[in-house]
C-alpha cells in the first residue's frame, strides 16, 4: 500500500536535510510502528506523507497504491485516503468543529463522486463516533480544537479519522499527552479501525502505546533512515535497552 523508496527530503527554508535515504514498505492491513530518538525525522516523515509544503523531496519517491504522491497537494492526498493524526493538532478559532467535520466529510465524498451527507445521517455518524471515544457532543460545538486539553485534541483527531475512513492512517505520537485512561480509549478507537484494506503507520517514542496498538512490524528511524526493522519484540528490546545498542549496530 505504501512504498517509500530512497527518500531524501529537506526543510525548504534552510535546506537542512532531515530524511536521508529512507526505505519503508507497509502492506494493506499492516500496522507498522516507527520508533526512534528525538530528531530522527519521525514527525518530518509524517508531514512529508501528508504533503506539508515546508519540506521538499530531493530524491526518491513515495508510492501509495503504486502511484507517486509527490505531486499531490495535501487535500488530494487526503481525499485519496491518506490521513495524518497530528502530534499537535492546530487550534483554529472561528471554525466550528461540527461545521469543519461536515465540510471535510463532504469534500472527501465530492472527490469520490458521492453525494453530500444529509444532515441527520451526518449527525448520526458524528454522535456514534463521539460516543465510542467518550467525547461530549458539547465539545464539538466549540471552535476546532480551541480550549481542548491535550487529550481532547488527540481524541478529536481519532474522531476525524473514524469519520473520514482513510486507507492509510499516519499517527504522529498520538500517545503524547494522554493519561492511561485516554490512551486506552484512543487505542481502542484505532484498533476498531484495523481492517484488511487499511494500513497504519504508528509513530511513537515509547513502547507503551504499542501495548495497546500491537504492531505487525517495528522500524527504527535514526538520522533520517530506517536502520533496523523487526517485529513487535524489537519494540520491547528498545524499551529495555534504549536506542544506543541499535544505533551502535548500524554505525
Amino acid at each position: 500500500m505504501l512504498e517509500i523508496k530512497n527518500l531524501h527530503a529537506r526543510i525548504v527554508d534552510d535546506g537542512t536535510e532531515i530524511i536521508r535515504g529512507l526505505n519503508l514498505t507497509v502492506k494493506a492491513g499492516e500496522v507498522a510502528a516507527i520508533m526512534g530518538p528525538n530528531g530522527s525525522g519521525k514527525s518530518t516523515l509524517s508531514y512529508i506523507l501528508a504533503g506539508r509544503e515546508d519540506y521538499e523531496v530531493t530524491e526518491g519517491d513515495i508510492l501509495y497504491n503504486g502511484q507517486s504522491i509527490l505531486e499531490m497537494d495535501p487535500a488530494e492526498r487526503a481525499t485519496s485516503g491518506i490521513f495524518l493524526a497530528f502530534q499537535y493538532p492546530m487550534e483554529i478559532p472561528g471554525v466550528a468543529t461540527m461545521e469543519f467535520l461536515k465540510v471535510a466529510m463532504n469534500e472527501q465524498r465530492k472527490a469520490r463522486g458521492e453525494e453530500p451527507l444529509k444532515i441527520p445521517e451526518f449527525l448520526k455518524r458524528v454522535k456514534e463516533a463521539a460516543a465510542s471515544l467518550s467525547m461530549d457532543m458539547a465539545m464539538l460545538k466549540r471552535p476546532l480544537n480551541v480550549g481542548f486539553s491535550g487529550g481532547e485534541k488527540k481524541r478529536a483527531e481519532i474522531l476525524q479519522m473514524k469519520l473520514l475512513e482513510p486507507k492509510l492512517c499516519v499517527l504522529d505520537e498520538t500517545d503524547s499527552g494522554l493519561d492511561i485512561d485516554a490512551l486506552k480509549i484512543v487505542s481502542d478507537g484505532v484498533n476498531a479501525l484495523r481492517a484488511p484494506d487499511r494500513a497504519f503507520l504508528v509513530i511513537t517514542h515509547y513502547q507503551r502505546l504499542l501495548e495497546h496498538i500491537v504492531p505487525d512490524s517495528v522500524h527504527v528511524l535514526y538520522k533520517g533512515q530506517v536502520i533496523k526493522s523487526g517485529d513487535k519484540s524489537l519494540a520491547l528490546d528498545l524499551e529495555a535497552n534504549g536506542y544506543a545498542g541499535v544505533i551502535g549496530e548500524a554505525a
Partner: protein
Amino acid sequence: MNMHTQPQRTPAETALIDAFGDRLSLLPGDGAVMLKRDDAIEAIKHGLPTRRIESWHYTDLRRLLNAVPDFDPAAAAKAIAPIVDGSTVLSLLNGVSNAKAPTVEGVSVQRLSEKLTDGSIAPGLDPYGSDDAIGALNTAFVADGYFIDIADGTELEKPVELQNLQAGGQTHVRLPVRVGSGAKAVIVERQAGEGAALTSSVSQLVLGEGAEVTWLIVQEQPETATHLAQFKAHIGKNAKLTLFVMNAGGKLVRQEIMVRTTGEGADFKLRGINLLAGDTHTDVTMVLDHAVPHTTSTEVIRNVVTGKARGVFQGRINVHQYAQKTNAKMACNTLLLSDDGEFSTKPELEIFADDVVCGHGATVTEIDHDHLFYLMARGVDEKSARGLLVKAFVAEVIEELDDEAIIEALEARLDEWFVTHG
C-alpha cells in the same frame, strides 16, 4: 474683479452647492433649522476636507469624492426583508419615512421631517467641529428620518430594523433614538441600495441609566455608492452599548463613530468587520470619550482586504482628567489577501487621568499556513480551506454577540458577501 483667491472648487463641491440652492425650497425646517442649514453649506463652501486635515488624513474626501449625483425624485427603493425574522421594520425609501410606520408598545416613532418642520431638533443639528464634513453635509440636506423614543423600562422582544434604502440620487437622513432608563433593545441600522447614490446618514443615540442596547450597522451599499455615515452615542450611568458595524459594500465609505460615556459604570463595546473588495475605499473612524470615572470599553475591528481595496481604521480614545479607573482596550486585525490591497490603522490614546488601564494593538497578517495545511490535510481543497479561514477570522467577532438569532442573521450576511466575493 476677484479680490480673494479661492482654490478652485471640485466638480463635487460645485454640485453640492448647486444642489443646495435647488433643494432649499423643498427642505423642511423652521427658522432655527434653516439657519443651521445655511451654516452647514457655508462650511462646505470652504471646501471638503483633504489629507491635510488630520482626521481625514487617510481619506482625502476632496480628492475621493469625484462625482455627486443629482437628486432623483423618480428613484424608487423597495423595502427588504429584515435580517432577523419578525423585526419591526421602519423603512426610509430614498430618504423618505413611512407615514404608516408600524407601532410597538413602549416605542414612540415620529417622522423626522415633522421634527425639522417644528424646529424641535434644531439643537442636535450642529456639526461637532470644523472638520465634521459628514455632519455639515447631513445638516445642510437632511429631509427626513425617524425620531424614536423607547420608554423607560421597555424591553423589546424583537429587534427594530431601521432600513435606509436608496435607488440612486442623493439621500440624507437622520435617526435620533433615545432609550429610556432600564430599557433593553436591539436596533439594526441597515444601509443598502442599488444605485450610484450619495448617502449621508446620522444616528444619534442616548442611553438612559441602566439601559442596554445592541446596535448593529449593516452596510451593504453597491460598489457604485458613496456612503457617509455617523453614529453618535451618549452612554449613561450603568448603561451598556454594544455597537456592531459591518461594512460589506460601497465605493467610498466613511463610518464615523463618536461615543461618550456620561455616567459611571457605562460600558461600550465596538465590534467591527470590514469586508473590502474591488476598487473601493472604506474608513471607520472612532472617537471615544471616557468622560467620567469607572467606565469601560473594548473595541475589536477585523478587516479582510481583497482586490485593490483600501481600508482605514482610526480609533481615538480620550480619557478625561477625572475619568479615573477607566479600562479601555482596542484591537484592529487585518487579513490582507491581495498585494494590491491596503489597510491603514491609526490607534490613538489620549490620557489625562493617571489611574487607568488602556491598551491597543494592531496586526496585519496573511492566512496562517499551518491552519491551511491542517484543513487541507482533511481533504478540504485550497480554495474552500482559505474561504473557511477567512470567514472564521471575522466570524469570531460575530460569535461574541451572544444572541443566536443575531449571530445567525449576521453570518447569513457574511455568507452573502463570500458568495459574491469569495
